[in-house]
């Protein structure tokens, strides 16, 4: 698991009034001087170019401090951050105590947390919502977007519920279109805001060239869905949101997290989707992440994927018969039937992707998506059957 944020060891600032918040990292010694003034240089050896706004060193390179240009601002980071590379964007906190890696240019899985506020309180939320005003995040994103490399393939906006502050959400999406016109945008929303036709229309009018909104539907039974997301009337609003978005020609993905509650009616849900929402662009059936609230509600949520593999096959079979575009995410190859293979995706973001000790002997490990780090830490199927 990659460490994306935490305390830094030491920061040295020549000019304490000069607050560095967001910084784009370069590893290029040959960067034109004019570009260096806005950028941070990641030190890897004693050939250190002059003129960067800030320098980063991991602890093992601490001895290179002496090789830094005179009067340089620099930060020393734990060795965990050795992975920071060219084009990455980091945040150094105002108090100069911590760092957060906001964007990794080398990763295909960059997601931007828009807010921690949410009108859901899902039993299995991996990112438990907070009520506090966190609009500073929105300010930061507005500064971050122009720093992201223009050749970025995909960017995810997540939360919380990213549309919580509707005006600012639209502004960020609009800004993204302006600065990253060639980037595929994936927005993880519960869809309820789009129940408002005016808001849906305004989103559509931005005309992102390649965007998909991923919206969770956990059951065809409104009561069960509302219970899972802990919000009364959520199902009704989410469905209306999906209909509005599709009416406006926007791409929508339905995301189903599979656990002991949602598995109860998963085939019925798939029939419901095929029958009522055939026009959605993608259906993702996803394994449970052992993070956040999941661990508090484990008894109610945990089911060994081995136990539901036939139900999963049946459910995917229904969607497939209707010609829907399907993916199965966050599952281990040995815990799904072979009829799932055409839809099986290695989906877990690189920074939180691990394998179990049982997997060491497996011959198909490289085909397998493995586990969330949280799964390795907090519990996974006892039924792993390594291929050999």
């Amino acid at each position, binding site marked *: 698991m990659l460490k994306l944020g935490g305390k830094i060891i030491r920061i040295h600032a020549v000019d304490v009034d000069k607050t560095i918040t967001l910084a784009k990292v370069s590893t290029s010694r040959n960067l034109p001087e004019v570009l260096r003034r806005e950028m941070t240089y990641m030190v890897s050896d004693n050939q250190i170019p002059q003129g960067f706004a800030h320098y980063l060193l991991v602890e093992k390179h601490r001895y290179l401090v002496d090789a830094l240009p005179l009067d340089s601002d620099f930060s020393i980071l734990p060795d965990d951050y050795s992975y920071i590379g060219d084009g990455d964007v980091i945040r150094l906190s105002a108090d100069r105590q911590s760092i957060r890696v906001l964007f990794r240019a080398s990763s295909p899985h960059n997601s931007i947390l828009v807010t921690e506020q949410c009108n859901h*309180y899902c*039993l299995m939320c991996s990112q438990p919502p907070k009520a506090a005003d966190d609009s500073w995040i929105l300010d930061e994103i507005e500064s971050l977007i122009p720093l992201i490399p223009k050749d970025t393939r995909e960017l995810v906006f997540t939360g919380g519920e990213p549309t919580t502050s509707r005006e600012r959400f639209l502004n960020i999406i609009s800004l993204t279109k302006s600065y990253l016109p060639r980037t595929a945008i994936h927005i993880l929303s519960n869809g309820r805001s789009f129940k408002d036709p005016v808001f849906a229309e305004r989103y559509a009018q931005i005309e992102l060239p390649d965007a998909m909104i991923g919206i969770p539907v956990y*059951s*065809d*039974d*409104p*009561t*069960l869905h*509302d*219970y899972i997301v*802990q919000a*009364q*009337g959520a*199902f*009704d*609003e989410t*469905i*209306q949101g999906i*209909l509005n978005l599709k009416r406006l020609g926007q791409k929508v993905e339905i995301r189903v997290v599979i656990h002991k509650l949602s598995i109860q*009616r998963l085939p*019925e849900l798939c029939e*419901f989707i*095929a*029958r*009522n929402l*055939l026009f959605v662009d993608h259906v993702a059936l996803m394994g449970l992440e052992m993070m956040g609230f999941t661990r*508090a*509600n484990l008894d109610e949520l945990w089911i060994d994927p081995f136990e539901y593999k036939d139900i999963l096959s*049946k459910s995917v*079979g*229904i969607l497939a*018969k*209707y*010609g829907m575009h399907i993916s199965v995410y966050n599952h281990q190859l040995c815990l799904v039937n072979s009829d799932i293979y055409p839809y099986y995706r290695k989906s877990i973001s690189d920074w939180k992707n691990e394998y179990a000790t049982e997997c060491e002997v497996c011959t198909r490990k490289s085909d397998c998506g493995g586990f969330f780090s949280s799964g390795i830490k907090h519990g996974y199927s006892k039924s792993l059957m390594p291929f050999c």
Partner: protein
Amino acid sequence: MSKFQKLEFYAQQQTYELLPFKFDRLNDDEYVITNMAGEFHVIPAPMLEPIISKTFALSPELIATLRSKQFIRFTNEQAPLQLLALKIRTRLSRLAQFTNLHIFVVTLRCDHSCPYCQVSRQSESKGEFDMTTEMADKSLDFVFRSPNPAIKIEFQGGEPLLNFEMVKYVVLEAKKRNLKEGRDLRFVIATTLSLLTDDMLDFCKQHNIVLSSSLDGPMDLHNANRPRPGRDSHQRFEEGLKKARAALGYDQVSALMTTTDKSLPRAREIIDEYLRLGFDGIFLRTLSPYGFAIKTKKFMSYDTERWLEFYKEGLEYIIELNKSGIRFVEQYSAIVLTKMLTSGDPGFVDLMNPAGAGIAAIVFNYDGSVYASDESRMLAEMGDHTFRLGSILEHSYEEIILSDQLLDALENSFTLSAPMCSDCAFEPYCGAEPVYHHAIHKDVVARKPESAFCKRNMSIFKHLIELMGSDEQTKRIFMGWANRC
């Protein structure tokens, strides 16, 4: 106290509201309920009354299913209404497109003399039973008046290959006009393949013309049904099929069967013949009551019950084939299943409401008459001109499409207002069929208990629903069929 609420907190406290649905007895123990969008659910007979009167606390599972299929909703819920409206709109969307299928009867002449045939003449004389270029031109004027962005022109006969010059004329002329029109223009020739030449195939290949042929079963059955000089109909079909597939593409040649009394004991053999010849489906058809079939009383020689046995036996065998891994479709069932399991409309003229006559398909006859359907012109050959909408040489598009013959038939047969149809649970899967009912009962609606069309289709609908209820694997196979058309 946990910061999470319990499931009960989210359950509805007030009673539900009924959304529109209809019901019918499926068998001794069960009812089926259906709604306009085609959703259905089978319930134990004693549950029907309590669901409607709300006098009994339903299980959470049943409540969930009834909500999921939009049979009930709770106050203030909007999604169920929006979904129902959307599905019904989707189902009816083809109406706005108007006529797609345009049938050109280029000749009545035929080399076959099938006893059940509807419309054929054994004549050497070219003039008498052939379409003229003037008629073809006028018919094409009419075709391109249709607002439909997709236009299919189907050549029928007789045997259209006996007037292939006219086929060529219409294809070339239609394509010429389509340079400006820009429609999705397709052509089909309905032919026995017996007279197919390499030159004809070259032409078909050049213009992407699809062939729709006839195969009644094994050689002896096929040849008995379809006499021609030399008694070689089956052999010519098989040779033609091979040539046509090689030239046009394996899936560019389809076959339709006609059922006769001789077919009834031989369901499996007929299906095996389709399998042997590499088809991936069969249409188990009823015998048409039109044309010579009525006159020769051929269609009376077996009743609906017997045909249903034949159909069920064939279907059972086809399901077995699918379970053993051979993908093979019974096409009539597939049409019905599309209506049961999707919001799509397969566009099958017999099972449309309003009826497909005239507005989904229209026929330009060899003599310049315009008919509301293929069956209408067959009826006319027997002297009943009820569904003759006019003459292509004398009448305008408006006069024909707005003729009383057509509008009255459509309106009077509309199933959502026809007695016994309007409250039938199977209405969403069925169709109006004014021409059939007029032909047999001299009334476009007729008394449904006396209608073989009604009896046959009701039995099929119930049978398909029961099959899906009794076996998961069959349901899965049916889902595949439903999504093919």
